[in-house]
């Protein structure tokens, strides 16, 4: 495909700017102006439409293909949520409006969405209050850790370390480190779970807290999760719940009831906002009662007269972590989703996510080595170690799946499993789709034995073949600047 710049033709315009109805200004001093015009492409509207339509067709999406991408929860994104987000009453509101006196009354609908979402997430997670401001899951982690730090600072605790299991998402240690903490890794036991005894040994007075994903990235729910939180609390540490896998247990059990003090959610995972090819996301953070005072400003409160307002006067707050109220458009979609699922719908999400994963696990067990052979939650982790014997690697299996019309599973993660293939079907996929995937996986397993060389050539059905990542990193051609 040509680059947009390669389609540019001098003098062409794709969108005409409205004519001026005011005198042309001469107030700008020459010295402040650029010498050249910005070298943006020059295209007609048709050129632009064909270009981006062509690009889109070079992508897989959930609407085109099954996406069993472990830990990413690529579920179906309801069209209704998109319709809601496009309503001008939501999309065209200036964020500074409620900060003007009288302006808040003109944004009551938006404030109510944020307030109601807070209330709903409190109930779903068992927390005392939420902030909607973090603009992605990882941003939520950072916000959570900042509150942890604020808590310890307020109590005069001298804390230095944050514990993270070896199966954790990479963002956990990164967020902890970026917030200024030292990270200590807690090893998993043979069953893939955090071991209480090891944890007890590692916890000390310097422990600020623990970050835990539950079920973890092996798809396993730790039945001792409450005890784990208790151990952390015993040194006045805080237990942080990485909500990336909430999909597995939503409506069934609540992080707050497990003993967690801080929770972040990835709205696109559990609440079906579109992933967008890499964002925008949203990562609301919930806290227990004693941490409420540290939440970022502002928060939305309901006044006695039933109206909603922004509250800024929060002296112990960690401050401003977003310019306004978070990725409102994303929060709104998730709010719509929660309203559509409702009380009886949420547990059905967990049930079907877990059922689908266990079904795949059982059906593929004879063909692929399984990391831990127990009942899993929303995802199961295989290893390509059996296939390695024929010199077929996880990457070959992934690319072979592409030729079968499936997005590959998450590869090489969690790090504690050799050649991991992490499969998460999500609750929105049907038995037929999953059966199709299972059959494709079996075909690939057989091919790995019979014709391993063929598999290493995959994918053959895509516009480009396997791309040279080493060359990319070496040459670092990051932009065509003309």
């Amino acid at each position: 495909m040509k680059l947009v710049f390669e389609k540019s033709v001098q003098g062409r315009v794709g969108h005409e700017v409205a004519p001026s109805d005011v005198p042309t200004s001469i107030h700008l001093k020459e010295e402040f102006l650029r010498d050249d015009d910005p070298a943006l492409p020059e295209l007609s509207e048709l050129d632009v439409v064909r270009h981006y339509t062509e690009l889109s067709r070079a992508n897989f999406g959930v609407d085109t293909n099954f996406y069993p991408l472990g830990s990413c929860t690529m579920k179906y994104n309801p069209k209704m949520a998109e319709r809601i987000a496009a309503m001008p009453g939501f999309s065209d509101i200036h964020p500074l409006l409620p900060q003007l006196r009288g302006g808040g009354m003109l944004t009551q609908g938006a404030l109510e969405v944020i307030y109601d979402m807070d209330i709903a997430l409190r109930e779903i997670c068992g927390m005392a209050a939420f902030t909607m401001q973090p603009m992605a899951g990882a941003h939520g982690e950072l916000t959570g850790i900042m509150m942890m730090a604020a808590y310890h600072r307020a109590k005069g605790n001298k804390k230095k370390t944050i514990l993270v299991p070896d199966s954790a998402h990479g963002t956990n240690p990164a967020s902890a480190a970026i917030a200024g903490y030292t990270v200590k890794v807690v090893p998993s036991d043979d069953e893939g779970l955090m071991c209480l005894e090891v944890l007890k040994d590692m916890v000390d007075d310097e422990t600020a807290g623990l970050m835990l994903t539950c079920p973890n990235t092996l798809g396993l729910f730790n039945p001792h999760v409450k005890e784990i939180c208790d151990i952390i609390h015993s040194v006045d540490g805080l237990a942080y719940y990485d909500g990336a896998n909430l999909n597995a247990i939503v409506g069934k059990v609540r992080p707050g009831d497990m003993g967690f003090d801080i929770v972040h959610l990835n709205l696109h995972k559990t609440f079906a906002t579109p992933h967008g090819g890499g964002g925008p996301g949203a990562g609301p953070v919930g806290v227990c009662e004693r941490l409420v005072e540290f939440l970022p400003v502002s928060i939305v409160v309901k006044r006695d007269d039933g109206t909603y307002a922004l509250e800024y006067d929060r002296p112990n707050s960690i401050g401003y972590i977003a310019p306004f109220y978070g990725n409102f458009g994303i929060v709104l979609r998730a709010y719509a989703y929660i309203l559509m699922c409702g009380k009886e719908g949420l547990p059905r999400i967990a049930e079907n996510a877990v059922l689908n994963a266990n079904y795949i696990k059982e059906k593929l067990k004879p063909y692929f080595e399984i990391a831990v052979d127990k009942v899993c939650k929303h995802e199961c982790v295989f290893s390509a170690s059996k296939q390695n014997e024929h010199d077929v690697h996880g990457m070959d299996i992934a690319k072979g799946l592409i030729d079968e019309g499936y997005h590959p599973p998450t590869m090489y993660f969690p790090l504690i499993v050799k050649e991991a293939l992490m499969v998460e079907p999500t609750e929105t996929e049907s038995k037929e789709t999953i059966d199709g995937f299972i059959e494709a996986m079996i075909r690939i397993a057989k091919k790995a034995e019979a014709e391993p060389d063929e598999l290493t050539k995959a994918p053959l059905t895509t516009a480009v073949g396997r791309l040279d990542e080493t060359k990319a990193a070496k040459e670092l051609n990051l932009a065509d600047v003309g």
Partner: protein
Amino acid sequence: MPFISNTDQQQQQMLEAIGLTMDDLFADIPDELKIKNLELERGLTEQELQVRLQALSGKNSTHLTYFLGGGFYDHFIPAAIPALAGRSEFYTAYTPYQPEISQGTLQAIYEFQSMICRLTGMEVSNASMYDGGTAMYEAMMMALRKTRRNKVIIDDSVNPIYRVMIHSYTQNLNIELDETKHSDGRANRDAILEQLDKETGAVILQNPNFFGCIDDFTDIAEAAHEKGALLIMCCYPTSLGILKTPGSMGADIVVGEGQCLGLPLSFGGPYLGVLATTRKLMRKMPGRIAAETTDGEGNRGYVLTLQAREQHIRRDKATSNICSNEALCALQASIYMSLLGKKGLKDIANLCADKASYAFDRLTAVPGVKARWGKNWFYNEFVIDLPTDATDVVSKLIEKGIAAGFPLSRYYEGMDNALLIAVTEKRTKQEISTLADALEAIL
């Protein structure tokens, strides 16, 4: 409607196939922890949801005339943007870790990076950050990592919304943040140059600054470089249709809010953080980056690169904890820049400046209203001094359907009567006159 495809019968078939019951699947959760009752409403159908949220959206006024800016602008959004970014192959796709089936997203990112470079005069750009504020914070951390220093100078003409964010983020870190106080609406050169020393890792400035004033920071860049510090410049992308680029002034890192490039205001987000820099600094750049490469047959293609900097490999040694960014927003901005192109962006920048200039003349002609800092230094936003409290005035004008601007007292002491007024290409001569007349009427 939890959007579950399996029927009850299929669920039963699957349970039988694996020889378990639904209870078995959740047996690892201790009973005492299980939810007894979820205090939520029953699920709503689409029709019910439509009625409810239509009503809720109706409680937000869409009939205001916006002279409200402050870094976030009411620009026109061409119809082709939502039509194209709304293609599900874009918005339902995952982060492009599997490049063969993600060339659409990857090429679009590469083109976004290229357009941002062309606009800012920089050499490399990443694939977007959360917003302008977090981009500024990441740029600061990047500069401090590079210079191995811990002192930052930031002028208070930089967007206060970003400055308070940076204060929050640096609370636990050992960073010295020195704020200089603007002078006559522009960055305080003297104070900055005075404070610049061998400990300074970064100087953060903005152009046009929060007051709408424009400047040339070439001299400050030179002074900073002399001391081994880096210059971070926050920009307003639309303005770069005509304004001198940060690159040509010698900026080392450029950040900015990309909402102006075809994104709706959407009550504060999702927006688009821009971050561009030089090839010299590119390996320190946080966030996703796409690079050009080839496949086995020499076909051109695009991949995410420099992933070793990211958390899924170096984990606690990563350059930032950013994982998802704002890819779809970057796509929208790319489509915007492609539609407007070289001429369109210049035209729109000129139009904003012209309309602002007209508004300035019209408003400063209202008896009692004064320009705070002359005329010849602003782009599409300017500050006027009212004879009375600006908060009151704005409040009265809101009742007349005009969001007249942002009272500066919220962030600046001693500026109770100062009002920041933004004018985009959408504001008509008529609307500007209406504002002037309304202002005159209440003063």
